[in-house]
C-alpha cells in the first residue's frame, strides 16, 4: 500500500469514528428532545386540565354565590368560567394522546355542559322566581291595599254608624266585629307575608316546606277570616271590598303556588341537576387531571429510560471509538514507520558498502598496476623459454621419425616369428593327434585284457565246478589269466608312456602358445609404439605451432599489460568518485532519518572516513616489448585473445557501475581480483 494511502486511511478512520459518535449522539438527542416535547405537551395538557378544574371550581363557586346572593353577575361569571373550563378541556383533549384521558376529557366536557345547562335552567328558574315574586308582591300589595281599603271603609262605616247612635245597638257589635275581622285578616295576611319571608329565607327543603305550609295556612286563614267577615256583612261597599280582597287574595294564593312551584323546581334543579352535575364535573375534571398526571409520570419514566439508554449508547460508542481509534493509529503509524526505517537501514548499509567497495576498488587498482609490472618481467622470461622449447621440439620430431622406422622393422620381424610359431604349433598338434590314436588302441588292448581276465575267471569257476576233471583246465585258465594280466600290464605301461608323450606335446603346445602370445604382444607393443611415435611427431608439430602462437600472444600480452596499467589509474579515480557518491548518499539518508524521527538519528552510524585515495602511479614507464620472436610461425589468434578481451572488459566495468548505480552492491570486485591474481601467476 502506498504511504499516502495509509495516511488517508488513518484520517478516514478518524472521520468515520467521529461520524459514528456524532450520529449516535444526534439520534440520542433526537430521542431525548422528542421525549421532552412529549413531556412539555403533557405539561401543557396538565396546565389546561388544571385550568379547567380551576375554572370549574370557579363556576361552581359562582353559581353558589348566585344561589346565595342572587346576583346575575355571579351566574354570568360562573357560566363564563364553566365555558372557559370546557374550552380549556377541549384544548387539552386536542393535545392528548391517551385514549383513556380523551374519554375522561369528553366525560368532563359533557359534565360541564350538563352543569352549564343546569345552571342556565336554575338561572332561568331564578329569574322566573324573581318575576313570580314580583308579581306575587304586587298581588300581595294589591291584597294589602284592598284590605286596607276595607279597613278604611270599615272605619268609615263605623264612623258613619257611630254617628247614628240612636237607631240601634246590635249592628255595631257585628260591624265592629267585621272591622276587627278585617284587621285580623290584615294580621293574618301580614303573618302570611312573614311566612313568605321565612319561606324565602328557609335553607333546607324541609324548612321551606314547613314555611310553605305555614304560609298557605296563613293565607287560608286570611281567606277564612275574610269569608267570615263577608258573611253577614251589611255594608255593600265593605262587601265589595271584601270580595275584591278575596279575589286578589286568591290571585295572591295562586301566585304563591306559582312561586312555590318555581322554588321547588329551583330546588329540584339545584339538587338533582346542578349539584350532581357540579360534583360529577369536579370528579371528571379531577380524574382527567389524575389521568394526565399519570400519563406524565409514565412519559417521564419513559423519557428517563430513553435518556439512560441513549447515554449508555453514547458512552459505549464513544469508548469503543476511542479504543479503535487508538489501535488504528498505532497500527497505521507502525506500518508507515517500519518500512521507512527498514529502507533507511538498507540505504545506510548500502552507502557503507559502497564506501568500502570503493576502497577495495582503489586497492585493487594498485595491485593491478603492480601486477602489470610483474607481468612484463614474466613475459621476458617466457620468450626465452619459448626459444629453448622450440629447438627441443625440433629434436623431438626427428627422433620420433627414427623411432617410427625402427618400430616398423621390428613389426615385420615379429610377424615372421609369429608365422614360424604357427607352423610349430601345427606340428605339435599332429604329434598330439597320433598320440591320441595310439592311446585309443591301447585302450582297446586293455579292454581285451580285462575281458580275457573275466573269461579266465569264468574258466576257473567251471574248472572248480568240474572238480578233479577240471584241474588241467584250471591250470590253463590260470595261464590265460597270467597272459591277460601281462598284456594288461603292457597296455598300462604303454598307456603311461603315451600319456607322458601327450603331456610333453601338450607342454610344447603350451610353450608355443606362450611364445606366440608374447610375439603377439610384441607386435601389439610395436604397433602402439608406432602410433605413439606418430602422435609424438604430430604433437611436436603442433607444439611448434603452439609456440608460435604463444609468441604472438606474449606480444599481445605486453600490449594488454600497458592497457591494464592505464585502466588501473582510471579505476582508482573512479573509486574516488564512488566514495564521494557514497558520502552524498549517506547525507541524504541522514535527512530521511531526521524526517522520520530525531531518535532514529542515532541509528545511522557516523559516515565513514573517505577511503584512501590511491593514485596509481604507474611504474610501467619502460615499454614492454618482446626481444625476439620465436622461430615457430605465428598462427591465427587463439583462445588467449578471448581472455584478454575479458580482462579488458572487467577493468572498465567499475566506472560504468559507479555512474549508473551509486550505492548498489553490483560491483564485481571479487571476480576482478581473481583475474588479477591469475595474471600475476
Amino acid at each position, binding site marked *: 500500500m502506498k504511504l499516502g494511502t495509509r495516511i488517508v486511511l488513518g484520517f478516514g478512520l478518524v472521520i468515520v469514528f467521529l461520524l459514528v459518535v456524532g450520529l449516535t449522539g444526534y439520534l440520542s438527542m433526537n430521542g431525548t428532545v422528542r421525549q421532552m416535547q412529549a413531556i412539555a405537551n403533557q405539561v401543557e395538557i396538565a396546565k389546561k386540565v388544571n385550568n379547567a378544574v380551576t375554572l370549574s371550581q370557579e363556576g361552581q363557586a359562582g353559581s353558589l354565590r348566585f344561589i346565595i346572593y342572587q346576583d346575575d353577575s355571579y351566574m354570568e361569571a360562573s357560566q363564563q368560567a364553566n365555558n372557559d373550563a370546557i374550552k380549556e378541556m377541549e384544548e387539552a383533549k386536542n393535545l392528548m394522546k391517551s385514549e383513556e384521558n380523551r374519554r375522561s376529557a369528553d366525560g368532563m366536557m359533557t359534565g360541564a355542559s350538563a352543569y352549564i345547562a343546569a345552571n342556565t335552567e336554575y338561572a332561568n328558574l331564578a329569574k322566573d322566581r324573581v318575576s313570580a315574586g314580583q308579581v306575587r308582591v304586587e298581588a300581595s300589595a294589591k291584597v294589602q291595599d284592598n284590605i286596607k281599603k276595607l279597613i278604611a271603609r270599615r272605619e268609615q262605616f263605623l264612623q258613619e254608624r257611630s254617628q247614628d247612635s240612636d237607631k240601634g245597638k246590635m249592628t255595631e257589635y257585628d260591624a265592629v266585629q267585621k272591622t276587627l275581622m278585617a284587621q285580623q285578616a290584615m294580621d293574618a295576611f301580614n303573618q302570611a307575608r312573614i311566612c313568605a319571608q321565612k319561606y324565602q329565607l328557609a335553607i333546607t327543603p324541609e324548612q321551606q316546606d314547613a314555611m310553605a305550609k305555614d304560609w298557605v295556612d296563613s293565607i287560608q286563614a286570611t281567606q277564612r277570616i275574610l269569608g267570615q267577615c263577608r258573611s253577614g256583612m251589611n255594608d255593600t261597599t265593605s262587601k265589595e271590598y271584601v270580595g275584591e280582597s278575596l279575589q286578589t287574595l286568591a290571585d295572591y294564593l295562586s301566585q304563591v303556588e306559582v312561586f312555590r312551584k318555581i322554588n321547588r323546581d329551583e330546588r329540584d334543579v339545584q339538587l338533582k341537576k346542578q349539584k350532581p352535575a357540579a360534583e360529577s364535573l369536579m370528579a371528571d375534571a379531577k380524574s382527567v387531571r389524575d389521568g394526565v398526571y399519570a400519563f406524565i409520570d409514565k412519559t417521564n419514566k419513559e423519557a428517563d429510560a430513553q435518556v439512560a439508554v441513549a447515554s449508555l449508547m453514547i458512552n459505549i460508542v464513544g469508548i469503543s471509538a476511542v479504543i479503535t481509534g487508538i489501535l488504528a493509529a498505532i497500527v497505521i503509524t507502525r506500518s508507515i514507520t517500519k518500512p521507512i526505517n527498514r529502507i533507511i537501514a538498507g540505504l545506510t548499509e548500502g552507502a557503507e558498502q559502497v564506501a568500502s567497495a570503493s576502497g577495495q576498488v582503489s586497492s585493487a587498482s594498485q595491485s593491478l598496476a603492480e601486477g602489470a609490472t610483474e607481468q612484463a618481467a614474466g613475459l621476458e622470461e617466457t620468450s626465452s623459454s619459448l626459444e629453448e622449447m622450440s629447438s627441443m621440439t625440433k629434436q623431438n620430431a626427428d627422433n620420433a621419425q627414427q623411432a617410427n622406422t625402427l618400430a616398423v622393422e621390428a613389426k615385420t620381424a615379429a610377424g615372421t616369428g609369429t608365422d614360424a610359431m604357427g607352423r610349430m604349433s601345427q606340428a605339435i598338434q599332429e604329434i598330439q593327434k597320433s598320440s591320441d590314436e595310439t592311446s585309443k588302441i591301447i585302450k582297446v588292448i586293455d579292454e581285451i585284457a*580285462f*575281458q580275457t581276465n573275466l573269461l579266465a575267471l569264468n574258466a576257473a569257476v567251471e574248472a*572248480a565246478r568240474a572238480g578233479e576233471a577240471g584241474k588241467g583246465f584250471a591250470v590253463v585258465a590260470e595261464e590265460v589269466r597270467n597272459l591277460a594280466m601281462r598284456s594288461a600290464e603292457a597296455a598300462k605301461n604303454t598307456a603311461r608312456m603315451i600319456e607322458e608323450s601327450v603331456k610333453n606335446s601338450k607342454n610344447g603346445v603350451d610353450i608355443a602358445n606362450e611364445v606366440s602370445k608374447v610375439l603377439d604382444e610384441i607386435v601389439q607393443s610395436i604397433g602402439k609404439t608406432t602410433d605413439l611415435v606418430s602422435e609424438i611427431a604430430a604433437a611436436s608439430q603442433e607444439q611448434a605451432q603452439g609456440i608460435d602462437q604463444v609468441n604472438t600472444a606474449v606480444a599481445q600480452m605486453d600490449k594488454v599489460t600497458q592497457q591494464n596499467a592505464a585502466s588501473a589509474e582510471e579505476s582508482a579515480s573512479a573509486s574516488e568518485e564512488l566514495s564521494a557518491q557514497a558520502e552524498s548518499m549517506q547525507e541524504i539518508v541522514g535527512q530521511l532519518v531526521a524526517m522520520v524521527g530525531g531518535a532514529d538519528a542515532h541509528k545511522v552510524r557516523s559516515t565513514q572516513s573517505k577511503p584512501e585515495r590511491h593514485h596509481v602511479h604507474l611504474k610501467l614507464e619502460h615499454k614492454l616489448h618482446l626481444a625476439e620472436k620465436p622461430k615457430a610461425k605465428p598462427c591465427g589468434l587463439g583462445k588467449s585473445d578471448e581472455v584478454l578481451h575479458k580482462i579488458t572488459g572487467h577493468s572498465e566495468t567499475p566506472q560504468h557501475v559507479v555512474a549508473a548505480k551509486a550505492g548498489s552492491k553490483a560491483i564485481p570486485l571479487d571476480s576482478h581480483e581473481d583475474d588479477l591474481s591469475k595474471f600475476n601467476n
Partner: protein
Amino acid sequence: MEILKVREIIGYMDITAVPQTPAYVEGVINLRGQVIPVMDLRAKFGMEAAEVTGETCIIVVEIVHGTRKLSTGIIVDRVREVLDIRAEAIEEPPAFDAGVNTDFILGMGKVGDSVKILLDIDKVLVQEDMAVVPHR
C-alpha cells in the same frame, strides 16, 4: 562265496530297472536269452553307492531256495581272483556287539597275512530285510 554257487562272471551291462522293487534291486538283465534280476550288494548292505567303473562286474549266482533254483546277479566293484582256501584256514566269524547281524558271514578266510570275509550268499540274497537294518 562258494565257487560252486557262481554260475558266471560277466562285465557290467545295461540294467533294465523294474519299478516297485526294493532299492537294492537294480533291475533285470538279459543274459543270453535269460532274464536275471540284479541287485546291488552295496545297497543291500546299506553301504554307500559306488560309481560304475571299467572294473565293475556282475557275478551271476545260483542259489537254492526251497525247491527252486534262483539265478541272481550281484553288482560288485571288482573281481580280483579265484582263490583256493583250505577248510582249516576258515574261521568262525567273530562276535561283535549283540545288535550286529553276522548271519550272512560264512566265515573268515585267512589268506597269507590278510583276512577275507566269506559271504554266505544264500543268506545274503534271501534275507529281505537286511538293507533295512542299519549295519556299520
